[in-house]
Structures are given as structure tokens and as C-alpha cells.
């Protein structure tokens, strides 16, 4: 089997060995239902509680403020629908133009259901303007939902400051922290965030488990109705093995966060510097904004993203693209469009997202392979710096 160079950790991550080991007994030995009256099911409850405790330590919240869900998307939907249900007379939502589809497509749907939505713009470095938020809040604003860190660019938003503003105006604030958890020091005891979503598979636990934090005292309406699980806030039998897995992953993330961030940042910086030095006409997206240490969004002028990814894939390198063609949609990503990245570059954007499992040798390998990949595609490309219509495109930094 050819070696895999996995640089797509914002898409999903490898499950940590210790996480897998911790989960194993819950498939064939401790498989009872925690809601059962008998000892066999009942004994499982304490593992769910322990996991809840571990996750609460990662987030700096109370264990009872944690609701287990099936994924980040469910957490986002639950939070936004809850905010709307508990404020039946408020019909306005504020979000950003660069949210994950889990939020942005829900908002677009809600626009067809009688709600109005304000999408806050970002500047060319992918950052929102707090003043835009302040002036967007209306008396009928039910909820503000802004992600903690962007999945494509890694740009980190000032969500704690946003939470203060919302709190002052009496508006609920939700944040999608799916990319932030395990990478940013989250302490919910020190800020005023009302609701927060995380997803297990972005921090080395399996796909299919998520968490919604709902601050104690915040009015809440459940999304899934049925049994009394999660104290009536999320019906459905607990996914015990995955809950246990996420608990363990949170424990590991908390213990190693600083060390891992330093390690991953060093690799990212080497990759970023190397690519910019070796390849002309590139652009780092979100360069002037605070960014996640593991994410690099880089655009290569006059080539198209899917072809880059396909050639990299031939070499065993897994990355992703913000360009259109790979995803089935035809336009470049809404994030790059919102940042007004020129078309000459937006189409040729690649996202490398790293994790603790990447090594310096792997970065060296990418730096060796990448210049040739871009050179080949530029030789085929119908456009280049000299194409007359692109004279204006030359003032791109780098």
C-alpha cells in the first residue's frame, strides 16, 4: 500500500489509538442501555457520566450543560431551532457569510419560512467587523450564530467579544466550535457564550458523535422528541461507545493542547513558507487574521483546484480544495467568494490541515512534489500572468 500523506484533518481525523481502545468494551461487553433498570444497563450510565465530565473539563463548563448529539450539524440545528422556538415573536437571525453549510444552509432554509437573516460580511483576510454585528442587532433578533474558527481558512473569530455584545442586547449567542475544539483554549466559565457545538471526529474520536453545550439558565427547546435521555433535551438512546470515545479524546486534547499546537504550528509554518518561496504567484488566505495553528489555505494563480488535488492524490497526498469542481457545485467556495479573493486565485485554492500525526518528513515531501504539480498545470493552463485581461490581477500580495 502506498504511503498516505494525510493533510485533510479539518475534514476528519484519525481516531486516536487510546480512544479506540477505550471504546471497545462497549460493543460486546458493556452493551447495556443506560436507561435500563437492571444492573447490566445501569452500570453503563456511570461511563456516560464520566465522559460528560471529561468533555466539560475541555470546555470549561458544567457536566450538566452538555448534551450529546449525533454530529456537529445536529448540534447547530438544535441550537438555532431552540433559539427560535423560545423566542416565538422574534424573526431575525444574524450569522456570517462564511459559516459552515450546517449553519448557512439552515439559515437559507429559514429565510423561506418567514425569518430574515443578516449575513455579516468578511474582509479580504476573512475577518468580520464587530461594528457590523452591533448595527445588525435588532429588537426582533432571536439568535446570533458565528463560528469560532473557519473550516476553510482557519480564521478565528472574536466570539467571546461577540458573546458580550449579544448578552448586553439580550440576544442568544451560539457558536459552531467544531474546528476550534481541541485547538483553542475554550473556557466557557469565563465568557457569555449561550450555546456551542462540537463534533467528535475533528478531534480524533469517531464520526457520528457531537456535543451541544447549553448554558445553565438559557431557555432551551429540544429538537428530537421522544424518550427522556439527556434529561429530556435530546431523545434517542445514548451512543455509549462513541460518547466514551469522545470523552477520552477530550481528555487527551486537553492534556496535550499546547504541545500539539506548537508542534503543528511549526509544521504549518514550514509548509507555508516553503510553498510561497518555491512557487510564484501564490496567496495565503487569512494571512493577516488570527488563524488556527493547523490550517493553511493557499491559492495558486491560474490553475484550478480539482486538478491540483487529483495530481497530489496520485502522489499519496490528501488535501482539499475550496474550488468548485471537486464538490459538485460549480462556483468557488462561498468563503473565498465572501473574502473577494480574485477569481484568478480563488479557483486554485488548496487547504492543507494538519494534525499531531503529521511529520516534518511529510511536509518536506509536499514541498518537493508541489512545485512540479503547479508548474505542470500552469503549462497546460489557458491563462497566465501575461494574459492581457489579467493585468489587474497582478497586485495580489506574495
Amino acid at each position, binding site marked *: 500500500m502506498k504511503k498516505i500523506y494525510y493533510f485533510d484533518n479539518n475534514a476528519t481525523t484519525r481516531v486516536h489509538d487510546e480512544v479506540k481502545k477505550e471504546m471497545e468494551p462497549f460493543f460486546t461487553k458493556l452493551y447495556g442501555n443506560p436507561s435500563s433498570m437492571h444492573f447490566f444497563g445501569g452500570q453503563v450510565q456511570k461511563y456516560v457520566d464520566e465522559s460528560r465530565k471529561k468533555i466539560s473539563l475541555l470546555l470549561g463548563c458544567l457536566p450538566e450543560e452538555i448534551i450529546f448529539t449525533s454530529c456537529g450539524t445536529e448540534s447547530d440545528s438544535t441550537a438555532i431551532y431552540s433559539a427560535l422556538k423560545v423566542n416565538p415573536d422574534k424573526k431575525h437571525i444574524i450569522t456570517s457569510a462564511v459559516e459552515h453549510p450546517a449553519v448557512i444552509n439552515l439559515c437559507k432554509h429559514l429565510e423561506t419560512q418567514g425569518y430574515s437573516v443578516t449575513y455579516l460580511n468578511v474582509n479580504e483576510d476573512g475577518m468580520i467587523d464587530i461594528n457590523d454585528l452591533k448595527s445588525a442587532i435588532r429588537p426582533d433578533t432571536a439568535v446570533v450564530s458565528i463560528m469560532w474558527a473557519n473550516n476553510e481558512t482557519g480564521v478565528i473569530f472574536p466570539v467571546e467579544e461577540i458573546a458580550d455584545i449579544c448578552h448586553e442586547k439580550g440576544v442568544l449567542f451560539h457558536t459552531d466550535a467544531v474546528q476550534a475544539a481541541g485547538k483553542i483554549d475554550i473556557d466557557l466559565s469565563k465568557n457569555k457564550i449561550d450555546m456551542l457545538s462540537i463534533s467528535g471526529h475533528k478531534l480524533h474520536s469517531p464520526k457520528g458523535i457531537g456535543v451541544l453545550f447549553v448554558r445553565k439558565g438559557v431557555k432551551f427547546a429540544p429538537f428530537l422528541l421522544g424518550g427522556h435521555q439527556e434529561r429530556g433535551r435530546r431523545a434517542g438512546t445514548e451512543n455509549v461507545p462513541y460518547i466514551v470515545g469522545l470523552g477520552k479524546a477530550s481528555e487527551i486534547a486537553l492534556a496535550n493542547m499546547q504541545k500539539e499546537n506548537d508542534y503543528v504550528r511549526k509544521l504549518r509554518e514550514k509548509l507555508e513558507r516553503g510553498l510561497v518561496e518555491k512557487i510564484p504567484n501564490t496567496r495565503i488566505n487569512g494571512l493577516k487574521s488570527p488563524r488556527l495553528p493547523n490550517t493553511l489555505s493557499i491559492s495558486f494563480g491560474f490553475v484550478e483546484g*480539482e486538478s491540483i488535488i487529483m495530481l497530489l492524490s496520485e502522489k499519496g497526498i490528501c488535501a482539499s480544495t475550496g474550488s468548485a469542481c471537486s464538490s459538485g457545485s460549480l462556483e468557488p467556495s462561498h468563503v473565498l467568494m465572501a473574502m473577494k479573493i480574485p477569481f484568478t486565485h480563488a479557483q486554485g485554492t488548496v487547504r492543507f490541515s494538519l494534525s499531531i500525526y503529521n511529520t516534518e518528513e511529510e511536509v518536506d515531501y509536499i514541498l518537493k512534489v508541489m512545485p512540479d504539480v503547479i508548474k505542470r498545470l500552469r503549462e497546460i493552463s489557458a491563462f497566465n500572468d501575461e494574459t492581457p485581461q489579467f493585468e489587474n490581477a497582478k497586485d495580489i500580495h506574495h
Partner: protein
Amino acid sequence: MWNYTDKVMEHFKNPKNVGEIKDADAVGEVGSIVCGDALKLTLKIDPQSHKIIDAKFKTFGCASAIASSSALTEMIKGKTLEEASKITNQNIAEYLGGLPDEKMHCSVMGMEALEAAIDNYNTKKGGKRIIGEQEKIICKCFNVSEKTILKAIELNNLKTVDEVTHFTKAGGGCGQCKGEIEKILKDFWASKIKMNFSDMTVVEKIKIIEKILNDDINPKLKADGGFLELVDIDNNKIKVKFLGACSVCKSADTTFKEVVEKELKSKINGDIEIVLV
């Protein structure tokens, strides 16, 4: 991840005929960087035989766009312009062992570049596919004209808006033109039946009439407990018969005029005669 054929991957990884012929006899350019793909085709043509002696391409786009361009150049080399002009996007896709549905527009781009190059050679005017006043733009995001959409519908037998998007990209951006595409589809297929009815075989005629009866007429009559049956076809004369409650209904004449005649004439054409037996 796309399910590309080995042939697509081969033409993507080792494309044939990359480059630009310096003193080209014909140039065809389609697409733009905004659209996400673009192709510049240059040809060397023998003035006596009108054969394409050499073809080169430069393409900005995804793997299947590059593969389609490479395939196109291989397919047209050695052909006369007359022969080359018969190549359709289907031929390009077939040459590559097929393309994913969502990527068919790459093959259409190849066909259009070839068309533009042949136009350029014949008229010595412009190398770019010029979308002038006479061509109505339907999709503003990707600059797709009504002409391009109609041609793709006809060549590829497209029936839904999604299919049109896959083949031409029209409607794949903001989506505002989807209603217009739907109308183009509806009008195209309606006119298709109208144009050809008198040339159809009896079996084809029966099938179309039965379909209109089943889809558009009988569901309306069913509410009153009746239905309409096709009895015979004689050239453009269609004989039908009311059955069930309709056969004894006093207002059957009105129903015949308002529903049966109207539907059949609008769906087939105004020249047909409908006779109640």
C-alpha cells in the same frame, strides 16, 4: 471523489497536444477564469484538403476539462473540417469511456471550442466564441446562452434542469435562471412534438397521444368518473371516445372542447383534427 475512468485519468495525467500553435490557421476560445474553466484550441489546416494537420490546446480547469481537451485534439487530428464539425460532446465523452454526469459540461466545452475554431477559419473573424446580441444569455453566472442550452438539450436528450446544469453549467451558480431553463426545456420538447407529428409513425403517434391522455386529460375526467379512449388515427385525424360517466354526461360536449381539444392541440399542434366517435 469523482469516479473518473482510466482513460480520463490517463488524458489528465499525460495530456496530448498541450500548447499553442504559433501561426495557427484557426483559433477557438471558450470559457473564462470566472467560469472556472476555459479552453484555447489552435489548429493548423491544410488549405487544399481542409484537413486538420495539427491541433493543440491550453486548458484552465479540472481533471475532466483537461482530459476532454486532450481527447478532442486527438480525435480531430487528420480529419477534414467537414468531418470534425460532426463531432459532438457525446463523442468526446464516449472517447473517454464516459464522464460523470456533473462533468458533462467539460465535453460540451470541447465541442464549443471546436465550433468556434471552425467558425474562425471559415469567416476569419475573431477566435473567441462571440456571444453577440443575437444570443440571449440565460445564465449570467457562467455566461451561458440560450443557443448553447438548446443545442445541449437536443444533442443529449436532456429532460431536467439538473441535466442542463451538468451539461452546460447553466443554473449552477446563483440558480436564479432555473425557472427560465425549465421553460426552455418545456418549450423545446413541446415544439419537438409539434414539428414532427405528421412525420411520425403510427406507433409513435399512438404513444404520444396515450401519454397526453394518461398524464393530462384522464386525470381531469377521472374526478367525474369518466375517461377518454383513443380509437383510431388517420394521418392528422385523431378519433377518440368517451367512456364511463362521460358517455352519458350532458356536458360532455363542453368537456370535449375545453379539455380534450385544447390539451391535444396545444401539446401536439393546431393542425390536428379531433373527432369524437
